[in-house]
C-alpha cells in the first residue's frame, strides 16, 4: 500500500491490531475496507469526519457532562474507521453471550430463591450477601418468565492469546445502544463507499426486539394490549438522549417519576390529560436505590412511591428487575465461569479475564506479590473511576491502593493488565493504533437475542486503556460481516 493515510500507521506490533497483522498487511476481514480507504486523500477523510460530527451535533446526539456548567452537552467523539467482526467469530460471540446471560439469569433466580449455588459451596455466601446490588426485598419473588436481567451489555476485549474475552457485565441500566444505531445511520450517509460488497448485519431491529421483549414480560393481569413506558431520571441525566431515542423508536411514553402514581389498588397509573391510565411494563433507566422512596432512598425525587408494592404484587413488571446488579458485581464476576458450569453444565464459550478477589487469602497474597503486573479495580464503581494500573502507578499510589485493598478486601479485585487490541483511529490527521472494546447488548425474554455488533468504544489518548465516554473515549461503528455467498 502506498497512501498518505495508511503508510504512516505506527503499529509497532507490540499489541494485537484489529486491522493489520504483524507484517503490516491487512487482516482478511479488513482487506476490502483497507483497499477502499487507500483511495482516500487526507482531505477526503477530513471532510467526511467534519460531516459526521456535524450530523451528530445537529441531531443533538449528545451526552451531558456533569462537571461542566456551560456547554454541558457534548457529542460522543466518533471515529470513522469501523471495527469489523467476521461472520464466524460473531457466531461464537453470540453463542457465548447467550450462554452467559442464561446462566446469569438462572443465578439471580437461585440466589433470590433456594440458593442452591451457595448451599453447594460453589459461590461463597458472604460475597453474594455483601454485594451492594443484592436486594433483600427480592427474596422469594419470581418475576415474569423468571427473568431478572432483561437487558445486558457485556464488555468484550480481544486478548492476543485468548481471543475475545468478557471484561465485565452490565446488568443494571447499561447504556450506549442508541449510539450503535445512530453511528450506523451516520456511516451510511457519510461513508457509503466504505461498506463492503456483501454488506453488514443490520442493527436497526434492536428497538423492535426490545419492544417484543418488554411486552413478553408483562404481568398476567395486564391491559390488552399491554402498555409499556420508559422511566427516565429526566433531562439532565447523562443518558437522556438515549432514553428519548429508545422511547421514540418504540413509540412508548417517556415518563418521569412524577408522571406515575400508584393507586390504592397497588396498580401503577400514568397521569394523562384525560385521567389515569394503567401501566404494565416499566423499562426503568433509574437505579434500584431511587425506584421507590417508600422502600429505598426516602429522599429520592426520581422514583414513584409505592412502586415496589405494585411490583411485588405482580401488577407491573420492572425491567431490569431490582437486585439484578448482584450478578454484575466485579467480585461475583470472578465466579461467572463456575456459575455457567453449575447451571448449564457447559464450559464457558467466552472466557473471563483471570480475576483475583482480595477476599480470598491466596488471591490477596497474589495481588500483593504481583501488584506491578496487575490492574487493581474497586469492585463497585463504574466509568473507569478509581482504577489503578500497577505498571503505571507511582510507588505511593500503589501503596495507598494496596492499603485500601487490605482494609476493605470485599471492595477490590485485581486482573492482569490486558494488552487488549487496537484499531486504527484518526488522531491529529494521522491513523494511530488506539485500544478499543466492544459492548454487545443482549435481550432476555421468551428468547435470548444479541444485537449483531454493539458499541465499539476507543481510547482516544495514546497508550490509554480507558475507553469510557466520561473519560474522553470515543466510539466507532461495528460491522458484523454477512457470510459471503458461495
Amino acid at each position: 500500500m502506498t497512501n498518505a493515510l495508511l503508510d504512516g500507521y505506527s503499529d509497532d506490533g507490540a499489541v494485537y491490531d484489529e486491522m493489520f497483522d504483524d507484517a503490516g498487511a491487512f487482516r482478511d476481514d479488513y482487506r476490502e475496507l483497507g483497499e477502499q480507504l487507500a483511495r482516500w486523500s487526507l482531505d477526503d477523510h477530513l471532510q467526511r469526519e467534519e460531516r459526521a460530527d456535524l450530523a451528530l451535533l445537529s441531531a443533538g446526539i449528545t451526552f451531558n457532562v456533569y462537571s461542566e456548567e456551560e456547554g454541558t452537552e457534548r457529542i460522543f467523539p466518533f471515529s470513522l474507521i469501523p471495527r469489523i467482526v467476521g461472520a464466524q467469530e460473531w457466531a461464537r460471540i453470540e453463542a457465548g453471550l447467550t450462554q452467559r446471560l442464561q446462566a446469569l439469569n438462572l443465578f439471580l433466580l437461585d440466589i433470590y430463591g433456594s440458593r442452591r449455588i451457595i448451599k453447594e459451596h460453589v459461590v461463597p455466601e458472604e460475597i453474594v450477601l455483601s454485594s451492594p446490588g443484592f436486594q433483600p426485598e427480592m427474596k422469594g419473588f419470581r418475576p415474569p418468565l423468571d427473568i431478572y436481567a432483561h437487558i445486558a451489555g457485556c464488555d468484550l476485549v480481544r486478548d492476543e492469546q485468548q481471543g475475545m474475552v468478557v471484561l465485565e457485565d452490565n446488568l443494571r441500566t447499561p447504556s450506549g445502544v442508541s449510539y450503535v444505531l445512530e453511528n450506523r445511520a451516520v456511516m451510511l450517509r457519510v461513508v457509503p463507499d466504505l461498506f463492503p460488497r456483501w454488506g453488514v448485519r443490520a442493527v436497526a431491529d434492536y428497538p423492535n426486539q426490545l419492544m417484543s421483549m418488554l411486552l413478553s414480560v408483562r404481568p398476567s393481569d395486564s391491559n390488552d394490549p399491554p402498555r409499556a413506558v420508559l422511566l427516565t431520571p429526566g433531562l439532565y441525566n447523562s443518558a437522556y438522549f438515549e432514553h428519548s431515542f429508545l422511547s421514540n423508536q418504540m413509540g412508548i411514553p417517556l415518563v418521569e417519576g412524577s408522571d406515575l402514581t400508584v393507586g390504592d389498588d397497588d396498580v401503577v397509573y400514568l397521569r394523562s390529560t384525560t385521567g389515569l391510565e394503567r401501566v404494565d411494563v416499566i423499562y426503568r433507566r433509574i437505579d434500584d436505590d431511587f425506584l421507590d422512596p417508600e422502600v429505598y432512598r426516602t429522599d429520592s425525587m426520581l422514583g414513584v412511591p409505592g412502586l415496589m408494592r405494585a411490583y411485588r404484587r405482580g401488577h407491573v413488571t420492572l425491567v431490569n428487575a431490582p437486585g439484578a446488579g448482584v450478578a454484575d458485581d466485579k467480585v461475583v464476576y470472578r465466579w461467572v465461569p463456575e456459575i455457567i458450569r453449575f447451571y448449564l453444565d457447559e464450559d464457558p464459550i467466552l472466557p473471563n479475564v483471570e480475576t483475583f478477589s482480595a477476599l480470598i487469602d491466596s488471591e490477596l497474597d497474589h495481588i500483593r506479590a504481583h501488584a506491578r503486573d496487575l490492574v487493581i479495580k474497586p469492585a463497585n464503581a463504574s466509568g473507569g473511576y478509581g482504577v489503578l494500573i500497577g505498571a503505571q502507578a507511582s510507588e505511593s499510589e500503589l501503596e495507598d491502593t494496596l492499603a485500601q485493598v487490605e482494609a476493605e478486601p470485599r471492595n477490590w479485585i485485581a486482573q492482569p493488565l490486558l494488552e487488549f487490541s487496537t484499531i486504527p483511529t484518526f488522531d491529529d490527521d494521522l491513523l494511530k493504533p488506539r485500544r478499543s472494546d466492544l459492548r454487545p447488548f443482549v435481550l432476555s425474554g421468551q428468547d435470548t437475542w444479541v444485537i449483531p455488533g454493539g458499541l465499539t468504544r476507543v481510547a482516544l489518548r495514546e497508550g490509554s486503556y480507558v475507553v469510557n465516554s466520561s473519560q474522553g473515549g470515543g466510539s466507532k461503528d461495528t460491522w458484523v460481516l454477512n457470510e459471503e455467498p458461495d
Partner: protein
Amino acid sequence: MLSRVAENLFWLGRYLERAENIARMARVEHEVSLESGQEIWHSLVSTTASNQLFWNNLAESPDLTHSEFLIFSMDNPASLRSTLVRARELARGLREHISREVWEEINALYLYLALRKQYIASDIHEFCTETQRRTQTILGLYDNTVLRDEGREWFRCGMYLERADMTSRIIDAKYHILLPGGDSIGGPFDRFQWMAVLRSASAREAYRRMGNNEVDGLLVAELLVFSQEFPRSLAFCVQALLRHFQQATVLTPRRRRAAAERGVTLLHLDIGARDMEQLIEDGLHEFIDFFQQRLIDIDRAITDDIFRAEPGAGQSQRMATMDSG
C-alpha cells in the same frame, strides 16, 4: 396523553410564537429607529413587560442597551435568546413527540444562537431576520411532519394563545397613535408609524390586499382586532384557540375542561359582539386590558384543571373500572 408532555407542548408552541414575534418587532423597531433617527427601543422593552428589570440590569452594567437587553441578555427572561433557550430545552425533552425535522431545526436555531458569544449591535438585522425565518420554518415543519394527535392540538393552543397576547401588546403599545385625537393629525409621520405597526404584526400586505387604499390608524386597529381573515388578529386567534382547545379535549372529562372552555367561548363571543366604534367609545386600552386578563384566566384554567389536576383518592379506582369495562 401524558399531562406533563401536553403542558410542555403547549409551552413549546408559546415560546416559538413568542420568539418569532420578538424577532419581528425588534427588526421593525431597528429599521424605524435608524430611519427616523429616534431611539424608540424602550417602547419595545415595555411591550415585553420588563422595564423594571431593564433598569435593574442597567445599574449593574451601564453599557447595556435596550436592544441588547431585548435580544441577547440571558438576565432578561423575556429576551429573544432566553425564550429560544427555553424552547429548545423543552424540545429536547419532547423529542419523541415532535418529528426529527422539527427537533433538528430547533436545535440548529439554538446552535446558531449559542455560538454567538457576544452581542454585536450591527448584527441585529441579520440576527432577527434569521431567527424569524427559522422559527417560521419550524412552525411550518411542525404542521407538515408531526402527527395530528392531541399533542399537536396543545401545541397549537399555546401558539394561538401567545399570538393573541403578542398582537394585543403590539396594539397596546401604539394605541395612542392609532386613535384619532391627541397628537394624531394623519401627517406623513403618523402614516410612517402606522405602517410600522402593521409591519410589527406582519400585516402590511394583508392590510393592502384587503382593499385599504389609505393608511389610517383606525383601519389598522380594526384589522388587528376584528379581521376574520388575517391570521394574527385577536378575533382570528381566539377562534383558532377555541377550535384547537376543543380538539385537544375531546376525551377530557367535562369537569376538567369546563372552566377553560367557558373562558375561550365567552371571549370569542365577546369579540364577535363588538365593533370598532364601540371600541373607541369604551377605550381601546381598556379593551386590551380586559382581553389580556381573559387570556391569563384561560391559561390558568388550562394549567390548573387539565395539566396539573391532582387525581382524587377515589379516582384511580374509577378509572381502573372504566379501563377494564
